[in-house]
């Protein structure tokens, strides 16, 4: 043995040994060669697509994926009105209890099977079991039944003002229509396959979680004739292929856009915008005209924030400007002040009661804290350090509360861990929490029903579990009311109660810009990034 190899030069032996390994590696590769013909839209999405089932998760990234692959019965247009999408039309019985919905004919799923009423019924049932607004609708629904191949009925047990608003819900969880065989999957399990009837097909073989998601145009998609408007209107797939290339590092992603390695960057960090704008071949624009609301959420189960004076103290101690400067930096991208729980610029905007939030008043805050009987105990703020918007809010809150004499501990963790820790009801010292930061898109916050962080139904409320029967009464009244003026009156009353009760602190309203290169045109203005309509040269 030694004699044979003796003549070899030292390093070549090592190299030869190592050279064996690529063969092994090649054997393990399952990736097919990529077809690069035709037009490709290369996007840096705001997050990695981890889950493919938009009913199973509320993650915005999965919702955006859903819009490429699936279609909806109804859809919201830019006037915030619900329009038929897959539906040809609908009828409501005179008593307002029976909705009959008819599908457009000729729609097919990506596997070639036709879209039928049975698919719609099964899809709505699964969505209704999982989504907050869907659950509310199901609670007043007696039955959903197919009438024939293309029509089905929803029968209510009592009048309900938000049936179409629910079916045309634009954000998570969107009631996408899936083939019945997939929609019959248990709501707590992910669907095994991605088959929809939307304008693009999901290319499962090329999916690399953490890196790449690929969609191809679905040739048999039948778009509506109306022009695209938010989620409504004709969805024209103008590119052959959409590629999501996830780049977690903001600086790297920005450079990739500048170098032309990608075409569109969904959520560039505002601090990097000046660098992007310096390149004349790149357009920077806010495509979501409604914006986003920052949220500081309290835990109502444990002191000190089980007491409303402590929550009011916190609200007096903070300033929206501090939050907005630390998470957005550039005042071009946020409102100087927004005191509306249901968003500025939305149909239910009002500033009633917001004085407590407008002027930072540390003395008043200290008084209220005193009144709450705060005993100097440690307050735990969850601090998801991998999400700048949340991390910035945690830091600002911590400083404000320390300013008024609270003993604050920032518990650093990552977003995924936070989503499990915020569900813990135990005391903060036993692994629970007092405050966590988050944010919601305006489309999710526009009214008291979709805004789940104002819900105050105790045990069944969103994390933090506030309990306030008066708020729930007003929300129910809102849901039953069908007249918008009357709804507005309810919202004014509700918001007054909210500023007294403080279920959360709205930390401001900001607008996320999107950037794309000059080869991209016709990007839709909408609260959700839609990838139809876009053309690429």
């Amino acid at each position, binding site marked *: 043995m030694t004699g044979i190899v003796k003549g070899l030069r030292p390093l070549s032996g090592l190299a030869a040994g190592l050279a064996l390994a690529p063969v092994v590696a090649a054997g393990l590769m399952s990736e097919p060669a990529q077809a690069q013909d035709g037009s490709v839209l290369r996007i840096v999405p705001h997050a990695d697509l981890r889950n493919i089932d938009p009913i199973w998760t509320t993650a915005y990234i999965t919702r955006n994926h859903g819009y490429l692959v699936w279609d909806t019965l109804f859809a919201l247009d830019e006037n915030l009105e619900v329009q038929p999408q897959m539906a040809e039309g609908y009828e409501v019985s005179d008593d307002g209890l029976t909705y009959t919905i008819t599908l457009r004919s000729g729609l097919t799923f990506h596997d070639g099977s036709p879209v039928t009423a049975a698919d719609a019924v099964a899809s709505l049932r699964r969505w209704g079991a999982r989504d907050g607004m869907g659950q509310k609708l199901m609670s007043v629904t007696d039955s959903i039944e197919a009438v024939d191949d293309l029509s089905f009925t929803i029968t209510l047990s009592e009048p309900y003002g938000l049936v179409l608003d629910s079916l045309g819900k634009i954000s998570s969880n969107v009631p996408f229509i899936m083939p019945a065989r997939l929609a019959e999957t248990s709501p707590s399990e992910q669907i095994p396959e991605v088959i929809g009837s939307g304008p693009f097909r999901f290319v499962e073989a090329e999916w690399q979680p953490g890196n790449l998601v690929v969609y191809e145009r679905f040739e048999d998609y039948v778009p509506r004739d109306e022009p695209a408007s938010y989620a409504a209107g004709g969805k024209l797939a103008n590119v052959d292929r959409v590629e999501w290339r996830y780049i977690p*590092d*903001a*600086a790297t992603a*920005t*450079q990739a856009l500048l170098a032309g390695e990608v075409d569109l960057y969904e959520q560039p*960090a505002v*601090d*990097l915008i*000046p*660098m992007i704008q310096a390149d004349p071949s790149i357009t920077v624009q806010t495509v979501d005209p409604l914006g986003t609301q920052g949220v500081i959420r309290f835990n109502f189960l444990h002191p000190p924030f089980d007491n409303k004076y402590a929550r009011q103290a916190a609200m007096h101690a903070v300033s929206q*400007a*501090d*939050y907005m*400067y*630390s998470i957005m*930096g550039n005042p071009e991208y946020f409102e100087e002040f927004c005191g509306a729980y249901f968003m500025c610029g939305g149909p239910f905007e009002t500033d009633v009661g917001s004085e407590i939030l407008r002027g930072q008043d540390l003395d008043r805050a200290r008084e209220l804290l005193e009144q709450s009987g705060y005993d100097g105990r440690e307050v735990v703020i969850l*601090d998801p*350090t*991998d999400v*700048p918007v949340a*991390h*910035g809010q945690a*830091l*600002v809150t*911590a*400083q404000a509360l320390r300013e008024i004499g609270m003993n604050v501990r*920032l*518990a*650093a*963790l*990552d977003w995924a*861990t936070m989503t499990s820790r915020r569900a813990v009801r135990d005391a903060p010292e036993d692994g629970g929490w007092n405050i966590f930061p988050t944010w919601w898109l305006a489309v999710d916050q526009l009214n008291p029903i979709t805004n789940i962080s104002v819900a105050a139904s105790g045990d069944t409320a969103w994390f933090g579990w506030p309990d306030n029967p008066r708020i729930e009464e007003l929300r129910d009244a809102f849901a039953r009311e069908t007249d918008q003026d009357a709804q507005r009156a309810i919202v004014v009353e509700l918001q007054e109660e909210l500023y007294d009760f403080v279920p959360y602190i709205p930390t401001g309203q900001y607008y996320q810009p999107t950037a794309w290169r000059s080869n991209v045109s016709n990007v839709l203005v909408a609260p959700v990034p839609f990838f139809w309509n876009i053309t690429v040269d």
Partner: protein
Amino acid sequence: MTDRSHDRLQDPPLSARLTENAVAMADALRRNPTMLFGLVVLTVMALLAFGAPYFGLPEPMRQSPIDRLQDPSAAHWFGTDMYGRDLLSRVLHGGQISLVVGLSVAAMATSVGLVIGLVAGFNRRVDAIVMRFMDALMSIPSILLAIALVALWGSSVQNVIIALTIPEVPRVVRLVRSVVLMLRDQTFVQAAIACGTSTTRILFRHIMPNTIPPLIVQATYICAQAVIFEAYLSFVGAGTPPEIPSWGNIMAEGRMFFFQNFGIIMYPGIFLAITVFAINTFGDGLRDSLDPRMKRRI
């Protein structure tokens, strides 16, 4: 002292060995200017880090969002970060965490490794079991193990120190064990065994002192590596709590601004590189003077 000189001839007591090493070190410092350089730089870094609270700088965690991302000025020598915090103050305070992490990891890894290594080297049955565990532990890439540990236990300085210590232990154990194995068969140890000296006494009196010089050298390398690994952990999001300034945290938070506000990465980067460079240089000098024959062990 004179009546015990007989004893010392055979095997000097630990205190004497340590004094001997200390003398050798002092001597080495005189003869070895690079080692002196390393020590001086380290001392300056430590003074800057631990003296930082007394320099009249703004609080390192004091935010002022309106003053964010400022360029260096008279008020903020290094400028400010994205939350408007004073970067100079953060970088100086950051040295505390980095040095504490580095030193604690080095101290803990060497002391735990020393005990395990001594026992393993002297007891064949323990050795067989312990070394398999050490082999297994060593085959897990240390940074991955540390990332996993911090991510799972939650981020705190304490957890970072433990997470960085665990992967270092097997290397120390191997080093100590190799010294023990070498000494076990030497005459003076065999003689001690023959005289009925207890195992503990042999281990601590006769064998341990010989492991000290290579261990000290090893400790400096572990320390240098721990300072860098702390930065890696923060960089991937599994480090010390970001609110506490450490060089790794400052750089991790500043990575987004690399192309515009280069200082946020550059200043802590320079401090870190200088510190690690100084520790390594000091370690190299130590190695040359304590044990010229000893090779660099990883």
